[in-house]
Structure formats: structure tokens, C-alpha cells
């Protein structure tokens, strides 16, 4: 029998937004089993929320995740509104969708950069993060913060979008189309990226349904779900856009879904901004109390559906607050997605569900038999890049060239 080695990945790294611990069981180069251990970042937020009043709760859930920092608040305020039958003014709906889509754009660009980094294409990394910076600037202009915008509240939003800001925000949002087309063409046309991602980490439609996986992970496997369309909320039923679905379920299709989705996000953001020029305020219905009852709020975060359940007993704080982030459903699929692939592919496969898993530095491999051999994170990235280099030679290809002069 081949010697089985366990490669522990995680649990902590400064870059990692959520600590997770993967144990890759490998025989030679091949991954034969995966153990996932979570809970390293369990902060008891559900319990904590029971001690906060409804306004504070929104700020609390905003701190669940730094990247989805507006997805949790949107789902949370919708749950409160559902429990208390609170009306939301139309203008606030457009602002919610606008902030939500700007967040999706910056989150997907972050992921695209990391995927490029793992595969050894640092140009893709640098440039996608450069364009992400523009988005953070707009978010700062509108909300006052680059992250943790603090803009959602039950009954509406906390801040209006100033009319004088709309033209400059529109200009930056529209300006993103060109670089996104460039990324799209680069990824779709480059044979080397295809060689590294096509047919890798494939999840079938049946696996997605069994695990209840969500977001781009599900849509890349032909499962046509998107909470924004299926359960209309905020302004998603009021603007024109479409859900992107691909069929193959491999890492390549997950990249494609995310890139095409960004173009849809631009469409949504543009329409919301146009509407904000004419739709009048107010932006807050200012509910005074939440009557007893229960409510559910869900929102399509960049990684999939975020789910919040609130039970109100008529007091000013939730009697129970349940939170479910999309990675809770997406992570278990890794167990099947990595099986049979090599260690050099595992990095990109585990990254493909976008668990904000950028942790490869805290990763070390031990040979179980003698406990001596040790791989560091740098080794895993090196392995991944060596495969790219090897393919480059075999295929005689230069790798992705970003025709940056096209940006003008």
C-alpha cells in the first residue's frame, strides 16, 4: 500500500478571514481524503446578538466577515423587517442593492487576484487588486468607510447617496467594464489557464444539490439558483440583469461565472445609480418597535446565500438570532472536490469555493511515518507554480499576457 501522508493546512493565518483546518490525506501526489475542522473562529455571535438591541445587532453581524460586510447586515435587517412587517422606502432599496453589488465586485476581484496568485500569475493578482481599489474608494465616498460600511438598518439605510456624488461614482463603475472584459478575454483564451483549471476540482449537479452548496459554486455546476432573482428583495426585482450559469463544475467554470457575474453587477449598480437621480427619499421608515413574531432574511452574498432568522418577543432585542453563512454549506463539498487530484491542484480547488482561504503560509506537511519531512505553505504554492511552468514548457506557451495598453 502506498504510504499515506497527512498535510495539515491551517488553522490560522493573518491573511485568512476565517480560520479553518484542512487535513489533506495524500498518497504520493494524489489526494485520497480530506478532513475539515472548523470552529477556530467561533465567537458566539448568535448568543451575543441576544444581548444587543436591533440597531446594535446590525453592527454586530457586520463584523462576522470583513469581505461580506454588507451581506450579513442586508440579510439581518430583512429578517427583522420580516418579523416586524416593516416597510422600506423605495430609495433605500436602490441604495441597498448598489452597496451589495459594489461589495460583490470587490469581493470577486479579490478572489480573482488570489486565484491568479496561486496559479503563479502575479500580474493578474496585481491588476485585479488595483481595480478593486477603485471600488473601495467609491464605497468610502458613499458610506464613509472602505469596509464595514455601517449603512444598513431595519427600515432602510442610514445614509443617503448625495446627488453630487452620483456622476463620479457612475464614471468609475462604468470604467470597470474595460478591465473586466480584459480579464474575461485573458482567462477564456489563455490555453495555460485552461490547462490548470479545466476539468479540475469538478463538482456535479447532484453533488451540489446533496450538499446544498450555494452561489458561484452551485451556478458553475449548472444549478440555476440566485436569491436575488428567486426571492426578490432590495431593488433586484426592479432592475434588469441575468443570472450567470455554467455547466462543467470545474475551477475554470467557477472563474468564468465570477467574471461574468461582475459584468452583471456593473449593470445593476449603473441602473441603481440612474434611479437614485430621480427616485425621491426618505431612505428610512424609522420603525419604533418590532412586534412579536419570527422572520427570515436572506441575501445573495458574493459566495452564496446568507441566511438570518430572527425571533422577536416584542422587546427591543432578538429572542433568538440564527446566522448561516454560505461557506457553511460550500465547505463540505471540498471533501469530494479534491479527491483524486494532485497536491499541486489542491490549493486552487480549495480556493475555488472562495472560503477566503488565502492562508497557505501557515501550512506544514509532516510525513506521518517518521514525522520529519515538513512542507511549508511556500512549498505548496511552489508546487502549484511548478506545475504551471512544466505545462508552459510542454505546451510551448507563454502564459497569460495582459494587453494593458488596451486600457488606454
Amino acid at each position, binding site marked *: 500500500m502506498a504510504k499515506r501522508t497527512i498535510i495539515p493546512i491551517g488553522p490560522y493565518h493573518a491573511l485568512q478571514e476565517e480560520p479553518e483546518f484542512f487535513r489533506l490525506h495524500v498518497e504520493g501526489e494524489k489526494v485520497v481524503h480530506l478532513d475539515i475542522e472548523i*470552529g477556530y473562529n467561533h465567537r458566539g455571535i448568535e448568543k451575543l446578538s441576544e444581548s444587543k438591541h436591533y440597531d446594535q445587532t446590525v453592527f454586530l453581524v457586520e463584523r462576522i466577515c470583513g469581505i461580506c460586510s454588507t451581506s450579513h447586515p442586508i440579510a439581518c435587517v430583512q429578517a427583522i423587517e*420580516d418579523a416586524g412587517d416593516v416597510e422600506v422606502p423605495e430609495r433605500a432599496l436602490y441604495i441597498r442593492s448598489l452597496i451589495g453589488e459594489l461589495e460583490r465586485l470587490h469581493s470577486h476581484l479579490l478572489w480573482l487576484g488570489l486565484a491568479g496568485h496561486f496559479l503563479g500569475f502575479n500580474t493578474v493578482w496585481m491588476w485585479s487588486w488595483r481595480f478593486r481599489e477603485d471600488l473601495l474608494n467609491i464605497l468610502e465616498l458613499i458610506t464613509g468607510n472602505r469596509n464595514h460600511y455601517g449603512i444598513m438598518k431595519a427600515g432602510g439605510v442610514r445614509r443617503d447617496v448625495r446627488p453630487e456624488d452620483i456622476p463620479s461614482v457612475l464614471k468609475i463603475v462604468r470604467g470597470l467594464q474595460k478591465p473586466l472584459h480584459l480579464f474575461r478575454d485573458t482567462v477564456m483564451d489563455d490555453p495555460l489557464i485552461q490547462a490548470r483549471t479545466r476539468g479540475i476540482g469538478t463538482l456535479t449537479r447532484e453533488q451540489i444539490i446533496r450538499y*446544498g452548496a450555494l452561489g458561484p459554486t452551485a451556478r458553475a455546476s449548472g444549478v440555476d*439558483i440566485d436569491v436575488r432573482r428567486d*426571492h426578490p428583495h432590495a431593488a433586484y426585482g426592479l432592475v434588469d440583469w441575468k443570472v450567470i450559469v455554467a455547466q462543467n463544475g470545474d475551477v475554470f467554470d467557477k472563474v468564468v461565472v465570477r467574471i461574468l457575474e461582475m459584468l452583471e453587477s456593473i449593470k445593476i449598480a449603473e441602473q441603481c445609480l440612474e434611479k437614485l437621480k430621480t427616485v425621491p427619499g426618505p431612505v428610512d421608515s424609522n420603525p419604533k418597535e418590532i412586534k412579536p*413574531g419570527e422572520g427570515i432574511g436572506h441575501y445573495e452574498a458574493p459566495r452564496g446565500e446568507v*441566511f438570518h*432568522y430572527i425571533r422577536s418577543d416584542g422587546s427591543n432585542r432578538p429572542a433568538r438570532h440564527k446566522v448561516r453563512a454560505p461557506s457553511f454549506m460550500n465547505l463540505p463539498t471540498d471533501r469530494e472536490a479534491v479527491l483524486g487530484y494532485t497536491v499541486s491542484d489542491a490549493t486552487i480547488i480549495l480556493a475555488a469555493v472562495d472560503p477566503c482561504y488565502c492562508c497557505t503560509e501557515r501550512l506544514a506537511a509532516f510525513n506521518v511515518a517518521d514525522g520529519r519531512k515538513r512542507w511549508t505553505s511556500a512549498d505548496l504554492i511552489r508546487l502549484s507554480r511548478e506545475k504551471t511552468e512544466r505545462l508552459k514548457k510542454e505546451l510551448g506557451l507563454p502564459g497569460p499576457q495582459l494587453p494593458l495598453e488596451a486600457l488606454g
Partner: protein
Amino acid sequence: MSRAETLTTLKQKLGAKILNYFEKSPKRIYLEVRPEDVTEATRILFQELQARFQIATGVDTPQAIEILYHWALDRHGCVVSVRTKLPREKPEMDSLAALCPAIEWIERELWELLGVHFRNHPDLRHLLLNEDWPEGQYPLRRDFVKGKPSHG
């Protein structure tokens, strides 16, 4: 199947097993069944009506430990929540993980945080809490005091 047909099918198949049924709004449906009927409700929703399991919420109330299984009917834009009430003295029910693998993790969470025991769970060990978390202490119980076992 339309939304109305789907919900009628659900109601007909569960029949007298439904203890109460409540449409809070066209998008939110709540129904209650006995703990032993949850498996059947899950089978109908997941296998026959192709509902998507979202998550389960456990709530400790003075009368009982409530579990709500939230199912999204994405094609019809609504969420069906199946409620069941377990006695606080001995909260126990069959695991649904074999029927729907998406439920495996949340049952582990309900077990460690709320003390609900799931019979025949494939892998009932701690998910969020550490392995050395003291036995019988359930942080989401109302009477939880750090360091003291929770009582029914």
C-alpha cells in the same frame, strides 16, 4: 408545478401529520410536525419537491426545544420552515444526515450548542466547540451558566 400546487402537494402528503400550518406571508410558510414525522417531511420536501435545505434553527423555549428546518422553494420564491418541538428533559430525534447530507453539519452544531441528540448520526462530534468542551454544557440553553451542567 406552481407555487400553490407545490404547497397543496406538501399539505396532502403530510396530511394529519401537520399539527399547524401558517402562511405568514406569500413568501414565508411555517408548519409544525411531531419529531417522529420530521423525516417524512424532509423526504417529501427534499426528494419530491426539490426544495433546497437552507439551515436548521434551534431555539430553547420554556416549554420545549424547538427546531426549525428552513427549506427554500427557489422556483416559487418562498421559504417553508418545518417546526418540531422536543421535550426539554430529553431532546432526541432521528438524524436526517443520511437523507440529506447538507444537514450533517448543522446537526452536529445543534447537538453541541443546544444538547439535542440525533440518533444514527454518522459523525456526531464537536463542530464549533473544542473537543475538550465539558460534557453536558450547552451554551445556547437559556439556563446555561459557564462551568455548570445544563438541566432539562
